[in-house]
């Protein structure tokens, strides 16, 4: 992604005037919708079909997950502030906001890892039942996407320190930003259709236990 567009001749102009790489990224994100859509479809088709527990309402901690959802949302803010900075030529703030984004992303990942290990200790693994299977694969692949994103963020930070992300090269930040925001919007969907919808069941279970 470091390769800049060489000095402009007619042969490097594009038919639409749009950058090849940006077009590629949007096409890729459109295609990634189908990837996550299929995983989400699997999760929702199998929701409520587990033969045995533990069930979501027994292990989900909505307040906890809300915090990590909030963290990821804020990372989108820091990401767009990073882009804004480099578009103004502010390389220092670029790095600050990129590092902030990477940190927030890493916090999110840490939160996921913690949540997963907690679930495992409570008896939910990928083998246990349909819930475990579909939950871990869906959120696991989302987490893998976030991890790739964090790698790219740190790469950009390094490149910036090496003086290779200048104002006229802001496209590289923009491309990573698009990917990052996408990962965030996928989580918006997952948070809602996986976690939030279980809240009534969680409350009902608590009530049944006399809480």
């Amino acid at each position, binding site marked *: 992604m470091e390769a800049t567009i060489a000095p402009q001749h007619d042969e490097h102009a594009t038919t639409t005037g749009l950058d090849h790489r940006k077009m590629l990224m949007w096409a890729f994100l459109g295609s*990634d919708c189908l990837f996550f859509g299929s995983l989400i*479809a699997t999760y929702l088709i199998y929701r409520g079909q587990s033969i045995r527990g533990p069930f979501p309402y027994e292990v989900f901690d909505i307040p906890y997950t809300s915090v990590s959802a909030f963290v990821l949302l804020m990372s989108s803010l820091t990401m767009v502030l990073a882009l804004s900075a480099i578009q103004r030529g502010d390389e220092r703030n670029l790095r600050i906001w990129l590092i902030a984004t990477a940190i927030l992303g890493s916090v999110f990942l840490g939160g996921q890892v913690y949540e997963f290990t907690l679930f495992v200790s409570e008896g939910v693994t990928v083998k246990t039942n349909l819930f475990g299977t579909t939950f871990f694969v869906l959120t696991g692949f989302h987490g893998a996407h976030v991890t790739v994103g964090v790698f790219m963020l740190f790469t950009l930070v390094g490149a910036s320190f090496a003086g290779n992300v200048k104002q006229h090269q802001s496209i590289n930040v923009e491309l990573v930003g698009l990917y990052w925001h996408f990962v965030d919007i996928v989580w*918006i969907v997952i948070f809602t259709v996986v976690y*939030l*919808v279980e809240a009534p069941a969680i409350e009902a279970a608590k009530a049944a236990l006399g809480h």
Partner: protein
Amino acid sequence: MSHASEHDSSHPSPSRYVGIALILAIVTGVEVWIVYQSYLTDIMVPLLLVLSIGKFAMVVMYFMHLKFDSRLFAILFVGGLLLTLGVLTALFALFSRVYFA
């Protein structure tokens, strides 16, 4: 430069971005609040869908700048999105234990 042109058009300022982030945070808070209101449980799903779609749209349009960029990008992305929604709907119908048992 072929990639500079899109940025000359309306460019939300940093404070605008912070404002949008604030809205996203508030909406998330509202969603969390809603699911704990037992009197809303019957309409919980549609409510959540509307709110989540709103958040989704705001991130895409503003943070991802799609509102201000070429419509071609929107076609590429929204095309994939619509196809996803179509396939999901069909799959839910096919696995619906109410109609197709």
